[in-house]
């Protein structure tokens, strides 16, 4: 994936610039502090850093936003991971009696990785992605976002581009943060429809009755299927792909379709023939009659790694972390603009650092003078930093993050009021 002008060798030089002038520390702290509703929430959070030369340090923790900033500016991590909130400060875990240092809470997270779809995408493999297969991520986000909100009742979801070949979801509701390991694994299993390793051919098997969750997910998949699978991936075009698709149909149907496809070459029509066969089967048999749905799901339905979601102490790449291989920033994805999201347009660290050096426009100069007049010295440094990221392509992503935080903040207000009410009773 050609990222313009980015070379990982430049990281040691531009990371300091990124952390000094661009990383949105105050929004970051606002997020992880969760309104200060729970004591020591930020202080007991584990961070892990990957430093130069692959040196990996765990159990980092910080008492204030300022301390976090200073440390990150000192260490200039190549990669930042966020872990759980523990019973004690992670950076003091060695002083705690063995067995009592425990991970208590963490956001419910999901990691969708494009490599898990290698058996069903023909355009790319492994770490590569392209606009044709990116649709898989769009579908994943739509399906999971709907399910997490409508079925599970979660409201505060942050979707983030991982920087290379996937997306992450952070479910930040209080109820989600308090989920046990068993509950997280149950949620992940509920959301899993594609099962089996390389040894399994048919990875989706549906039986009656079809659960409302599957129906709703199919509604989403069906919207994208014609353009994504029939056209872009051309699954009913080339012979090898056709064979793979037909291998997922019952034997009698397969033989019939192989015949029919001799005379019909257009993928859309071939798909219609397949659907007709399915309709016929649904009328007559009790088994194997949902194969057209199974095919759509096997090719499009989100594949998530249950292990990532299960563990309360699992470390996941932080939003606004840089991806060392591509240089891209892990930015929040605005679901209102999901259809036009382009992973190749996500800013790289080199790009935004370059943008900083651009000469200021006349408007920017005037604005900055205005603000300079109003502020005192202390705030000036802070606002200068704020103004800095605003001058770069990072701005719109920080804005998206802000909107996410604003919505969540309303729930914190409610919590704080509740708490202070309770205190008044005493």
């Amino acid at each position, binding site marked *: 994936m050609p990222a313009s002008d980015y070379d990982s060798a430049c990281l040691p030089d531009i990371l300091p610039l990124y952390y000094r002038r661009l990383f949105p520390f105050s929004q970051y702290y606002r997020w992880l502090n969760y309104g200060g509703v729970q004591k020591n929430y930020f202080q007991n959070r584990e961070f892990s850093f990957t430093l130069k030369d*692959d040196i990996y340090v765990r159990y980092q923790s910080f008492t204030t936003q300022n301390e976090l900033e200073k440390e990150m500016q000192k260490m200039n991590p190549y990669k930042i991971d966020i872990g759980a909130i523990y019973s004690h400060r992670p950076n003091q875990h060695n002083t705690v009696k063995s067995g009592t240092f425990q991970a208590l809470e963490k956001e419910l997270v999901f990691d969708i990785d494009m*490599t*898990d*779809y*290698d*058996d069903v995408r023909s355009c790319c493999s492994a770490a590569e992605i392209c606009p044709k297969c990116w649709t898989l991520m769009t579908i994943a986000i739509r399906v999971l976002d709907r399910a997490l909100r*409508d*079925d*599970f*009742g*979660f409201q505060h979801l942050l979707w983030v581009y991982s920087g290379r070949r996937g997306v992450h979801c952070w479910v930040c509701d209080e*109820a989600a943060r308090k*989920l*046990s390991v*068993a*509950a997280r*694994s*149950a*949620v992940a*299993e*509920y959301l899993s429809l*594609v*099962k*089996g*390793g*390389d*040894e*399994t*051919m*048919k*990875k989706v098997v549906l039986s*009656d*009755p*079809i*659960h*409302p*969750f*599957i*129906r709703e997910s199919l509604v989403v998949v069906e919207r994208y299927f014609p353009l994504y699978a029939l056209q872009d991936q051309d699954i009913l075009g080339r012979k090898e792909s056709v064979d793979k698709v037909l291998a997922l149909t019952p034997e009698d149907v397969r033989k019939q379709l192989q015949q029919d496809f001799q005379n019909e070459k257009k993928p859309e029509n071939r798909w219609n023939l397949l659907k007709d066969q399915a309709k016929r089967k649904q009328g007559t048999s009790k088994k194997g009659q949902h194969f057209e749905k199974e095919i759509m799901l096997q090719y499009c339905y989100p*594949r998530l*790694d249950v292990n990532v979601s299960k563990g309360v102490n699992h470390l996941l790449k932080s939003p606004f972390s840089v991806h060392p291989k591509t240089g891209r920033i892990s930015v929040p994805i605005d679901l209102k603009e999901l259809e036009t999201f382009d992973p190749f347009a996500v800013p790289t660290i080199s790009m935004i650092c370059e943008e900083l050096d651009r000469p200021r426009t006349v408007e920017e100069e005037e604005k900055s003078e205005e603000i300079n007049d109003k502020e005192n010295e202390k705030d000036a440094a802070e606002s200068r930093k704020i103004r800095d990221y605003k001058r770069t392509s990072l701005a719109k992503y920080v804005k998206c993050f802000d909107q996410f935080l604003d919505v969540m903040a309303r729930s914190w207000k409610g919590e704080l009021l509740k708490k202070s009410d309770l205190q008044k009773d005493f």
Partner: protein
Amino acid sequence: MQFSSRRKKFTTNSQTELYSHPLLFYVQPPLENISLMEFETFAVERLKLLKTIENLGVSYVKLSDQYIKKLEAESKALNFLYRAEADDRKPQSGPTEQEKRRKDHISHFILRLAYCQTEDLRRWFIQQEVDLFRYRFNDLYPKQKLEFLHRNNLQYDTISVEEKKALHDKLVNSSYAVSGITVEDQDFYKVPFQDALDLVRLRKVYLKAGYVYIPHQEIVTIVLNDFRTRLSKALALTARSLPAVHSDERLQPLLNHLSHAYVGQDYSIQKNVGKISLEQIDSLSGKSFPLCMRQVHQSLRENHHLRHGGRMQYGLFLKGIGLSLEQALQFWRSEFIKGKVDADKFDKAYAYSVRHMFGKEGKRTDYTPYSCMKVILSNAPSQGDHHGCPFRHSDPELLKQKLQVYKVSPSGIIQILELVKGMHYQLACQKYFELTHNVEEASFSLNHPNQYFIESQKVLGGGRDIKRETDAPQKPQENSTKAPSAAPEAAANTQDVAEMTEELDSFFQDA
């Protein structure tokens, strides 16, 4: 609980109340005196029952007819079976219903003492107790089920008739068990999804805005969840009071032995380290590896890579057969280098994980090789993986092809596939063993890949180099030799314990 060598006292009033319902949530511990004899007998018998439950759970679908029949037989034999109606008026030989329920109550709490100490023990105990509870709850009449719920404060809200109507189709389509009639006739409860994880996990229920909608008849899953959570918390609490219990020297030997009995052989202690050379592995994989390991080894050789799940399953197995850490590092390194991983990356990333397996990094836990149960039930393979149990995780077609390639006879393949269809994965693997080693009947009951390896080596006429690990733990002998140092009064009891524990060993060896 007070212990003395006096005979048991039986306080009627509170007990009749406590045991008036056949099923217990085990909230209140027993508050009576009990003889050491009863203490031992009750504990051992319950343990036998739980062990039976474990074995049945692997061989049969839980709550299938065969499962229920066999469990009933065993419960009866151990005097744990009780009828749902306590009909003490009928003249009976043997213990009364009351007495059986009392035994159930007391034995559960005794085993808590033995099984609260480590994560593994707790997990095992909870799993078997939950399965036992599930079987018993299933056996109750509907009226008794309701009574049980109310006694134990599981009050969830029902939804209105209007809401039921509005959700009618969704409710019917959420579960095979829910028909239109169910929706009309039964009350539906709105339960937070965290209280019904088993139903959520298997998507057997309608879920909306964080609540599941459960017909009255399905309430059992909720109850089980509740049971599991309570027991888990209780065990954590029990663990804290353990030092006080252990200071009673009459109890400590028995409790120790009880908790070791369930594990049997876990192949965690490495014997024969270094007796196998890396050059032998390819040929051994064909001759003596179970199919799961043979498969994962082959895929490692072909792809020069394995993902995490495969590395764990295979790496620990290799440790179990006797590879040393140095050998393991060399093995993985040489294979990965042939692929896309350069030596540097291996040393940085993968070597850590190998050392971790041998307990040389992180928490320094010496991880035990996966048993069949673990390979079958957890760590399921997904896209790009080659681990797991082939009898469980492979498509029957692909499995058949593989067996053909490995030259298993067509009739043998049919037998194996039949067993797979019946979900008897370990029996299928055992059959594979019998067919590939040309033995009529395997002399062991397969439950561990390393066990397969050892038995295979035995049959292939070695056994001289790789010594057979003795199954019987040394404990009983140790106990009786310790006896002279204990007080004379205790000596008689420890001998009872020794006898009992010998009997326990022989029971588990046959399993």
